[in-house]
């Protein structure tokens, strides 16, 4: 009779502890998913692509040389020959 009661008590305690552990695991999972998304750079559940992902970094690097074309155009429009303007813009620092 005693052993049967001990078995019931042990099973109940174990089930209680197991339930707490499961709840804790689920809570960690819910909170942990936020950490995983945070590490992955996700915002509101979506991973935001950066400029290199969409090929914009090459356009930004292009912008750094675009001003040379503007200078070239300016020199040519002001009467300088194309070759002289090219030397001035691209080969003289």
């Amino acid at each position, binding site marked *: 009779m005693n052993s049967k009661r001990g*078995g*019931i008590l*042990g*099973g109940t305690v*174990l*089930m209680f*502890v*197991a339930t707490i*552990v*499961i709840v804790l*695991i*689920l809570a960690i*999972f819910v909170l942990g*998913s936020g950490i*995983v998304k945070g590490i*992955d750079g996700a915002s509101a559940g979506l*991973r935001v*692509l950066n400029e290199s*992902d*969409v*090929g*914009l970094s*090459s*356009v930004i*690097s*292009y912008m750094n040389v*675009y001003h040379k*074309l503007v200078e*070239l*155009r300016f020199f*040519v429009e002001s009467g300088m*020959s*194309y070759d002289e303007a090219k030397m001035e813009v691209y080969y003289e620092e």
Partner: protein
Amino acid sequence: MRNKRGQFFGLFLVVITVFLCLSVILLYGKQQDNAENSLVSPKVVLEVRDNLEKFEMQEKELIEESLVGIEDEFCSEEFLVSFREKFLEGISVEMKDFIFSDLTLGGVDVLDEHKNEDFFVEVVYPVVEDCDGDYFVFSRAKVGKSIYLKGDDRTKINFPVDFSFEFGRKYLISFINGEFDVEAIE
């Protein structure tokens, strides 16, 4: 005996929960890998546009240089022939390289064997036919470029783009008060 089964069932729930958590995390990671994409950069298009602008700067300058020093009467047949010859001789390597790169004609790729001086003489700069005493129109026939653009990383999702466009130009060349004037009209 039944109680021991209950103990195992509790532990089994813990194990299966941990397993499911790990599965979800792994699936999330895998999903992100599959969703990664590599888009085509528009840089090539911008560079082609810039090179076209440089080409046209050189072209206009070459037209102006070719007009100077011809002793025949403006708009005479001899004048037009001399002008065209001087112009064609003055086309630089940079100009040729621009025209010949990714060249198409009527939407069809031009073979390398046809990319030579004759292409300029026969196709790009046709003979000037109309001259109205004070001015004539010098044309560059429409040729095209076709470039196949693709993402940097082909292992990711990428959508190649077939970029093509045609370009040509007309210049109005006039001789007023002893001076030449070159103006792009189209």
